[in-house]
């Protein structure tokens, strides 16, 4: 593969991600209806958390609202069934096309993830002031989140790709999406900041990947730094996660291509 080919391929996949990102904004009434309850969730979860933890927490009530809003945003756009079905459904047809399914699905999933997150962010920007959050607090958090979004998009893209390849390989893995999501919901600090959990739970949860993709980014958006680790450490940890997921995805993709031969495509 020449340098020009790599450049062309990179340009195409960037455009493909951009296409998928724009697609998230192509049916605004439906997207608004789908996300209509999010502000309510943010409000109720923030109030519940504050009611029970105000005496021991690291966050003010305003910060809790922003934190819950951001974790909800990250979670509600994490490994969504429609994206996984679309990617796995395209498997056969893309073998007849001159681009790799693995890369094209990945760029599509990243674009869709970032697009969905930007859409929800726009919604939350309107909702936060109504819930009583200061504009300065909101703008700082939004800017920090925008910095992290592409990187988080890559991680979420790889997780979604994993489920898409698994779906091609074993057909019925979409049933695992829900429990998988719930595990990440519980372990990732989506309901409340892990920083406020008691020991030994806090210690254990901070080691696990869900905290790196939900809790730590949301904490960074609110506080401007990661909890208990430096920016470099978080980057290193997530890079390792990306590497592992990439290797698994490539391996499973190769398996899927072979196995696909035995049932007629």
């Amino acid at each position, binding site marked *: 593969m020449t340098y020009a080919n790599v450049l062309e391929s990179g340009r195409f996949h960037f455009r493909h991600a951009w296409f998928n990102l724009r*697609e998230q904004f*192509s049916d605004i009434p439906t997207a608004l209806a789908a996300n209509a309850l999010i502000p309510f969730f943010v409000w109720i979860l923030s109030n519940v958390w504050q009611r029970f933890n105000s005496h021991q927490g690291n966050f003010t009530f305003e910060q809790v609202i922003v934190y819950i809003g951001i974790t909800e945003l990250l979670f509600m756009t994490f490994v969504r069934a429609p994206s996984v079905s679309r990617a796995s459904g395209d498997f056969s047809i893309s073998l*007849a096309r001159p681009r790799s399914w693995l890369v094209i699905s990945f760029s599509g999933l990243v674009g869709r993830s970032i697009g969905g997150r930007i859409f929800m962010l726009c919604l939350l920007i309107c909702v936060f002031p109504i819930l009583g959050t200061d504009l300065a607090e909101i703008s700082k958090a939004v800017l920090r989140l925008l910095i992290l979004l592409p990187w988080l998009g890559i991680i979420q893209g790889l997780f979604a790709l994993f489920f898409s390849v698994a779906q091609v390989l074993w057909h019925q893995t979409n049933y695992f999406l829900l429990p998988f999501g719930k595990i990440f919901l519980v372990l990732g600090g989506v309901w409340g900041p892990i920083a406020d959990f008691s020991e030994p739970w806090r210690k254990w949860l901070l080691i696990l990947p869900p905290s790196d993709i939900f809790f730590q980014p949301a904490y960074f958006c609110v506080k401007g730094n990661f909890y208990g680790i430096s920016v470099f450490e978080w980057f290193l940890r997530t890079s390792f996660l990306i590497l592992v997921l990439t290797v698994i995805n490539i391996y499973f993709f190769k398996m899927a291509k072979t196995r696909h031969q035995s049932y007629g495509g």
Partner: protein
Amino acid sequence: MISSLNAKNIIKTFGSGDKAFNAVNDLSFELFPGESVAFLGPNGAGKSTTIKILCGILSPTYGNAEINGFKVGSLEANKQLGLVFGTRSQLFMHMTVFQCLDLIAEIYFLTGTEKKVRIFELAELFEINSLLEKRVRTLSLGQRMRCEVVAALVHKPKILLADEPTIGLDIIAKNSLRELIQRWRIEEKSTLLLTSHDLSDVEVLCDRCILIDHGIKKYDGKLSALKGNLAELRRIQITVADGSIPTFSKENLIHSLDKEEFIHRYEVKTSKFAISEALSQLSKHYGDNLQDIKISEVSLEEVLAQRYQDRS
């Protein structure tokens, strides 16, 4: 002449051990540039498996296939291939037709002016200019299918594989799509391989037909020749005013098929007995009681139904 598509001794085996079976069994054929070929067979004949092998979705267990000299499934072969599936959309429902075509063109490495020129050229040919800025979800099925065909042709493929392209369309949309595909064939001199259970598609679009069953090629030749002896058969249906009139018979020449109260049906082998003579004799037999005459050929549906029946 270099063939557009060359399939040599393709075998595809599914399963292993005692359960192994050949879905495609030593299938060979060639398509030449500009040809329009129907690929027919009953359900489970191995059509879809063969099509999947030809587009690189499946690899043959034995044998090989080439598209314009490139091994199927290779990058170069995939670039030469256009695919239309009547049951599967390659457009993105929430985007405009132009945005979809633009992206699909880029999948096939078309960029810049070349891409735009091609999209507008096909939009003109398939009469979708007014649809380009519409979102796919707002199109009717007929409009969407025209856009699907354009999406399959945007990269100027040498071969178009069309699988049931008119499925679900009403008669007007069907006719219009067939006419547009025909126009494209003539204009770009490309090869068409069509699979369809709607034989009117086949009769309008194809000159040649490959018939397979149990993965084996049963017929490869002109569509008109597929009817064999049945091509010379004509059916005459006569409506009579008086239900009590007996049927007419002229041994081995005009054969009475069946009789309802006011409708009598006959078969005539035109190679043995001129249709004009048959009509003259029938009109003499019925006299003033003859109300209406209808003459028809044996349809392709009947021919295939006959062949499919023989199989079971």
